[in-house]
């Protein structure tokens, strides 16, 4: 596996090219172009803010810190990255079979490229996050450093998932359908539009809460929120769980990819 990591690294220029091409193809036929990567999360954020912040307005957000709108925005932007990276990585090999069957590059770059491409969109959305923070009077503090940590964990997790899903999807096209459902469930299974305290105080058996927190996304989203809501910063235990989970997913995904690679190439 180390050798394939080295191979991917030495082909990082290929990775850059693929990402550039993806972004070109994606935006060349739309007038609003890159603004779609901002409009989508903002529109979704608006919906959740309306439903949970306005209609159910009692304590939708955390007890301390800026308003619930900020909370939703700080959760939605990274979620869009997770969501679109998973969706697009699943089809990364099946959709680019032409290139893969004619070009000798480490095949890992194709799913990884999708994760990187959606990361670029996340970065493009960061100015919106800053503007929102100013509007909603969120503090600019050292806790902002939890963002790079969140990004690091998220990249680890997403690369692992991308490798796993892209390779299995070639052999079982059901993966694509399954993931569309799974993505919706994942959205509500992590503290994205509600604070983690809601789960902790909920009337649920202890083991359900434990299982909930085993999801590596929980720690990641707590870090995203913690940048603006310092009280949300995850405990050492939660952070360790999340980091371990991300690493396991990465190693497992990469291993499966290596195992399936000969079969995948024959199927494409």
């Amino acid at each position: 596996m180390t050798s394939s990591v080295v191979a991917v690294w030495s082909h990082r220029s290929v990775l850059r090219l693929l990402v550039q091409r993806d972004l070109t193809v994606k935006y060349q036929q739309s007038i609003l172009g890159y603004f779609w990567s901002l409009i989508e999360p903002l529109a979704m954020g608006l919906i959740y803010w309306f439903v949970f912040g306005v209609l159910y307005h009692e304590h939708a957000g955390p007890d301390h810190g800026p308003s619930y709108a900020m909370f939703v925005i700080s959760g939605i932007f990274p979620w869009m990255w997770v969501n679109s990276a998973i969706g697009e990585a699943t089809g990364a090999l099946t959709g680019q079979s032409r290139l893969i069957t004619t070009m000798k590059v480490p095949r890992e770059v194709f799913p990884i490229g999708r994760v990187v491409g959606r990361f670029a969109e996340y970065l493009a959305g960061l100015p919106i996050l800053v503007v929102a923070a100013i509007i909603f009077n969120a503090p600019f503090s050292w806790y902002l450093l939890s963002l790079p940590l969140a990004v690091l964990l998220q990249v680890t997790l997403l690369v692992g998932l991308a490798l796993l899903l892209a390779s299995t999807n070639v052999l079982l096209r059901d993966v694509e359908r399954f993931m569309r459902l799974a993505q919706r469930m994942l959205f509500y299974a992590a503290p994205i539009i509600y604070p983690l305290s809601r789960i902790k105080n909920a009337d649920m058996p202890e083991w359900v809460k434990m299982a909930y927190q085993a999801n590596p996304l929980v720690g990641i989203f707590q870090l995203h929120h913690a940048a603006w809501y310092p009280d949300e910063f995850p405990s050492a235990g939660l952070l360790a769980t999340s980091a371990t989970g991300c690493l396991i997913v990465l190693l497992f995904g990469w291993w499966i990819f290596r195992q399936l690679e000969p079969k995948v190439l024959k199927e494409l």
Partner: protein
Amino acid sequence: MKPIIEARGLGIRFVKNRRRQLRLREMFIHGMRRQPDGTSFWPLRDLTFDIQPGEAVGVIGKNGTGKSTLLRLIAGVLIPDEGSITVRGTVAPLLELSAGFSGDLTGRENVYLVGSLHGMSRSELKAKFDEIVDFAGEQIRRSIDTPVRHYSSGMKVRLGFSVIAQLRHPILLVDEVLAVGDKDFRQKCYATIERLLAEGRTLVLVSHNESDLTRFCTRGLYINEGRLEVDGPLREALDAYNGTSLPRPASQPTRVHT
């Protein structure tokens, strides 16, 4: 000098009529080694040969005998199930009509993408861009900024060949694509391949066209039912190939004593 391509007991197995819905359990528990349902067959098996730098080798055989599979194995876009293949040098493959172009991108963007994926630098591509388009012809020049999905297959193969011909890689793999271009373009391709061979590159050519084969190749690999039957001078391989469909010539060694 070490051979530039070295195959040792090379084999690959495909599965016919595989059920699309492989069970997850099966896939993970039994690993990837277990044969899934459906009959498996070996398009290629027990291939052992060496190709020296500068050789021009023609691969001959009936349809479906694994010629293209062999080129894909050399190109490294398939992984063998048995044996090994060692390639000492980079490969410029023209395996498919489209050379890996994406339909959504324009001809220009595709030249840059495919060229750089094959390891050409941006400045190199800029310098060679006009030459590439010139070579591909007037029709391509006029539509270089339209998406490749509007190209005819002849146009795609012309542009693909132009890009591949600019690569400095020591090994050139060409699979049947010469048959697609028109007469003028074929002449250009011949000239280019001759130039590349004169520069000392190694060529592996798959073709059904005897005159193409005899024009470039000195050595032939005749593959029949997945096995390497003849590895020798091109004439010998061609004779063996023709022998399978025509009556066997009297000089056939097995017939001498009967």
